[in-house]
């Protein structure tokens, strides 16, 4: 495998973890979050600091997970107070606050970011394999959650919190759980990202990234794990595939996004579903 392929596959793995974890928050539990980049970033920074300090991979992974979920649970608490459509914008706010805060912190490298993160020692392909394994684990976990009673309760909370409460389902605890799990995984992805680039600046975790992740979830079909995985792979490869248009890359990318949604508004999951339904009828 060429170094180029390895780096692409690694990023695909990281994006799969991010998109699937966002899908748990926004797809399963209905809490629209447009700030997933912040949790990803928190994980990356924590892992980078841990790596610089101890050069221990397990510690760095742990640091990433903890940082992501701590920030996530804090935001989860905020989500208990605000209406759902307010939450979407508040999470955008969290993203901007995260970026704005890190920018000005010299202990986090400020504008300069953190460089010289020690290598994991697994080499580029070793890293890639670690990333892929963790991505698979995330997908399996997500599939399990959607089948468990937790996934069931998430759906109820996502649809109508008051009605859920009258069935004895405490919406608050579930929303916190969704945020906690989803952001812990985002933190994990952040740690992997820090291993991959060995250099991070806060610009990598901006609002645009969060929107991209939400696009993966929506295009995949909100709530469908497989759809989201497919969309994450597709949307990561797309900019690479259209590299030949060079100057017009964003133009084409934006256009594709509009087209895909216009043609398959229910996402890939719905598309596949309809296809099956049709062939079965025929």
């Amino acid at each position, binding site marked *: 495998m060429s170094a180029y392929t390895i780096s692409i596959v690694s990023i695909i793995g990281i994006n799969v973890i991010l998109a699937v974890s966002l899908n748990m928050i926004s797809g399963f539990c209905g809490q629209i979050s447009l700030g997933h980049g912040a949790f990803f970033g928190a994980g990356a920074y924590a892992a980078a600091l841990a790596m610089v300090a101890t050069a221990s991979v397990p510690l760095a992974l742990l640091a990433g997970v903890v940082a992501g979920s701590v920030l996530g649970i804090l935001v989860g608490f905020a989500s208990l107070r605000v209406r759902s459509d307010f939450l979407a914008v*508040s999470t955008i*706010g969290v993203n901007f606050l995260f970026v704005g805060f890190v920018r000005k912190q010299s202990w986090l490298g400020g504008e300069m970011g953190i460089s010289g993160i020690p290598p994991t020692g697994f080499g580029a392909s070793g890293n890639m394999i670690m990333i892929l394994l963790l991505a698979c684990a995330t997908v399996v976990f997500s599939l399990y959650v959607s089948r468990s009673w937790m996934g069931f309760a998430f759906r109820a909370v996502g649809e109508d919190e008051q009605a859920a409460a009258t069935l004895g389902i405490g919406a608050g605890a579930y929303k916190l759980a969704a945020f906690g799990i989803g952001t812990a995984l985002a933190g994990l992805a952040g740690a992997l990202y820090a291993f991959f680039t060995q250099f991070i600046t806060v610009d990598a975790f901006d609002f645009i990234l969060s929107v991209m992740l939400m696009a993966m979830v929506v295009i995949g079909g909100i709530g469908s794990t497989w759809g989201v995985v497919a969309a994450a792979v597709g949307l990561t490869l797309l900019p690479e595939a259209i590299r030949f248009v060079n100057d017009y890359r964003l133009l084409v990318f934006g256009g594709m*996004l509009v087209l895909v949604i*216009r043609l398959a*508004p229910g996402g890939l999951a719905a598309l596949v579903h309809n296809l099956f339904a049709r062939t079965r009828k025929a």
Partner: protein
Amino acid sequence: MYYIDLAVTGVSFGCMYAMMSVGLTLVYGLLRILHVAHAAVFALGAYVVVLVANATGSIALGFLAAVIVTPLFGIAIYRLLYEPLLRYRPDVPMIASVGLLVLMQDAFRIMFGEQGVTFRQNALSFTTFDFHGVTISAVQIALIVTAAVVFAGLHLFTTRTRTGLGWRATVSRPKIAASFGVDPVKVRYLNFAIGSALAAVAGGLVALLNNLVDPSIGFVVSYKALAIIVLGGLGSVRGTLVASLVLGLVEAYGTIFIGAWLDRDAIAFLALIVLLMIRPQGFTGARTA
């Protein structure tokens, strides 16, 4: 004087924010869509003003062209992009909207250049008045006056006119409103037309203020306006005005007093989050159960 200078900055900025976000709040109220591509409408307005002004030598003609072109563009967005997606969850049209914004921003870059466009003649930008040490520019005055007129007009429109009431009824229940004779299609067109025209005017004024329109001009709008409409209680015109002014002032003072810890964009969202924790329904939100 210093504090008054800051206040002038804050208020004029607040007025600009108000005009650019009111379209967004109107669309949200009617369709529950976060119309992110509104930022592209704002940028389009700015470009039209600059290009037409440079071609004809008249800034007024530039504004006239902008308030003709952008409403059509806004209506086109509704017809071609949102209407077919209304059946789906609101995140779906929102992502489509993001795609459109990305596309438009890059289209501006390709069509009008990375370097951006400046006014050939722009006496307005460099005209300032000095009141006892407080400086205020002609464009700032224009911003404040325009916003005052626009919002007074909008308020009267939505509370005193039948069309305005019909508009609000459609926001609440489109089908039933139609059953009483309020044409939902007309309401939506009107909505996008008004919102887009106001964004274009705001865009033009910002272009004058900066003497520069570059492809990223709409970027700030795309997220800050979102913060504003949430602060304003989503869908409320009055709330949007209040939130915009508050945000303008918070930024004006905040840049100086907490700018060392947080950048300006973050200040806006800090204000948002703090306020939401205290008043989860926004400034004016008085929602029914």
